[in-house]
């Protein structure tokens, strides 16, 4: 996302930037900078200013150097108007061996036919420009420049060359190294297709891609020369992602933003209502607990607030009867399971949604008792977890066995083979408890850590 608070970014007068003319003149609130001095970062249509930053390396316009630049004074590159001409003869005398050091326009050498092929290092920009006699090959830099304001694309260098020379160059064009015929290209459409059907062009514009660099980092380094479209700023997410021509994309993005915004609002409400809540067992404010313990354990049948670790611990307490530990520690209303949640839920609807989401999430996990068909789940079809075979087909295991007869057939023991020892001890100590009781114990017995998903196992019995 573009950081508009970047200290290097400032507001500059857009009028001056755009046309070198500002109706407010000296009294303008924003500094006047020409195009070659600043880099435009952001501009909202209709504003008097734009966000920009000073160019650290002002490049010299290479077309201007050749004597013709269609952008004239609106060029993004520096035009060293009079200096160039003044220094020209002197430079010729020096024959390129001595660089004019006292002039900051050292790169303003005009290529001429008299020059030997040589490499010229531009001090201000690091571009290497190779000049080979008349045939000037540009080995670096952009192949074409996009003029965003006119939305004209100059596809080839020749197009750029074929432009009227600057006014200030009027007396010097005779000195130009080669003759370039005048062509007022800017005034007429770029192509036949454009002339014939402006709609098709609009369509073409609409399908153009937005700059991937802006999408990724928020800033495109080639702001002025980028071949991609640069989107307008979305006032909600403050990113330059609104397609300037594609209305559908704008609408879609807007909806996404609104959705995101609603989500954020909900989240902040959730945080606000959870912030003060304290656990009824440890009495600590849950959101202020240590990392990993800031989770709420929501009981479906009552509205008392506990942290997940405390309520789970309470429900695994072995020293009390099942009825006691399955009840809310505050109101003694029995709940069948605990639903973990990051935030406190107030309303019935929120709670239902949370519990449904929780069940849905669990139903995608494989049951560790069912073991993809290798084992049997004591919870039967009331188990929250997934009972599916390795091929993915689901299996209805039927209702859970209601009661286990104490000295019954071995199949029953098979069901609970993992807990045989436990059962044995259990039965020895307590004459007979419900299956439910055992299973709850079993869960706690096999749950060695709180973060284990298996502690989500809860029991259903009526």
């Amino acid at each position, binding site marked *: 996302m573009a950081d508009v608070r970047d200290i290097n970014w400032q507001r500059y007068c857009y009028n001056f930037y755009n046309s070198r003319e500002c109706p407010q003149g000296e009294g303008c609130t924003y500094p006047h900078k020409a195009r070659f001095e600043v880099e435009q970062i952001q501009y909202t249509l209709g504003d008097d200013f734009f966000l920009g930053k000073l160019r650290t390396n002002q490049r010299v316009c290479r077309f201007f150097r050749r004597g013709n630049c269609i952008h004239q004074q609106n060029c993004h590159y520096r035009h060293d108007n009079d200096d160039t001409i003044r220094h020209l003869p002197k430079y010729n005398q020096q024959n390129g061996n001595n660089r004019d050091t006292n002039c900051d326009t050292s790169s303003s050498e005009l290529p001429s036919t008299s020059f030997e092929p040589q490499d010229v290092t531009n001090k201000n920009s690091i571009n290497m420009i190779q000049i080979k006699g008349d045939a000037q090959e540009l080995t670096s830099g952009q192949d074409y420049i996009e003029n965003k304001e006119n939305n004209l694309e100059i596809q080839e260098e020749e197009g750029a060359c074929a432009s009227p020379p600057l006014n200030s160059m009027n007396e010097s064009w005779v000195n130009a190294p080669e003759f370039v015929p005048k062509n007022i290209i800017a005034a007429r459409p770029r192509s036949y297709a454009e002339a014939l059907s402006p709609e098709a062009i609009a369509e073409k514009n609409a399908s153009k891609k937005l700059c991937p660099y802006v999408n990724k980092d928020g800033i495109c380094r080639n702001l002025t020369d980028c071949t991609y479209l640069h989107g307008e700023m979305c006032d909600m997410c403050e990113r330059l992602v609104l397609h300037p021509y594609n209305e559908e994309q704008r609408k879609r993005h807007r909806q996404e933003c609104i959705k995101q915004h609603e989500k954020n609002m909900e989240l902040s409400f959730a945080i606000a209502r959870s912030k003060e809540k304290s656990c*009824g*067992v*440890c*009495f*600590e404010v849950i959101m202020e607990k240590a990392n990993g313990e800031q989770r709420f354990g929501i009981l479906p049948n009552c509205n*008392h607030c506990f942290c997940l670790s*405390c309520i789970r*611990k*309470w429900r695994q*307490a072995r*020293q*009390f*009867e099942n009825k*006691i530990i399955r*009840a*809310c*520690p*505050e109101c*003694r209303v029995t709940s069948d399971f605990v639903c973990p949640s990051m935030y406190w839920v107030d309303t019935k609807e929120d709670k239902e949604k949370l519990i449904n989401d929780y069940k849905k999430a669990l139903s995608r996990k494989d049951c560790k008792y069912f073991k993809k068909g290798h084992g049997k789940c004591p919870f039967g079809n009331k188990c929250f977890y997934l009972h599916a075979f390795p091929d993915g087909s689901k299996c209805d295991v039927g209702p859970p066995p209601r009661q286990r007869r104490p000295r019954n057939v071995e199949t029953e023991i098979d069901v609970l083979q993992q807990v045989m020892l436990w059962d044995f001890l259990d039965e020895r100590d307590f004459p007979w408890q419900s299956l439910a009781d055992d299973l709850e114990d079993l869960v706690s017995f096999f749950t060695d850590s709180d973060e284990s998903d298996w502690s989500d196992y809860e029991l259903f019995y009526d």
Partner: protein
Amino acid sequence: MANIAAQRIKREFKEVIKSEEVAKCAIKVELLNDSYTELKGEIAGPPDTPYEGGNFILEIKVPETYPFNPPKVRFITKIWHPNISSVTGAICLDILKDQWAAAMTLRTVLLSLQALLSAAEPDDPQDAVVGDSIKKILKCPHANSDCDDKIKRLVDMGVEDHQARVALSSYNWDLERATEQLFS
């Protein structure tokens, strides 16, 4: 674990000190050591009971597993109550045993004990002697207005109060047989 217990007792301690009951001098808690494992409680005898005006000192021991297990509480002050041992001070109260809930606090425990003083459960006694005698007292015919009525009727017949009482009680408060015996 022990950390949870200590943290919680600390919080509860503040809660008790701030509570209304302390202001009314009904309950009181004092720390006995720095580790928050032993405390001294004090409850006032509830009004309109034989315990009114009394102050009963309690010993509270907080287990490491608190609040998942109840605190161990016993009376230091000797008390005559069917659910409290007159010898050891042990208390028979369900919430201090199997009906404990993790959300209960020192304050609720002390208030429950106060309620226990005003509502004894002689059918589930801790102290059998006290339980029996309190049952006898509760069954005592003098407490029954019906007996008074019968005595009054005999007195109206010209029998002396004491004689009527003896006759009625020897015939298990059967008015007819007592009358027969008196006037035969």
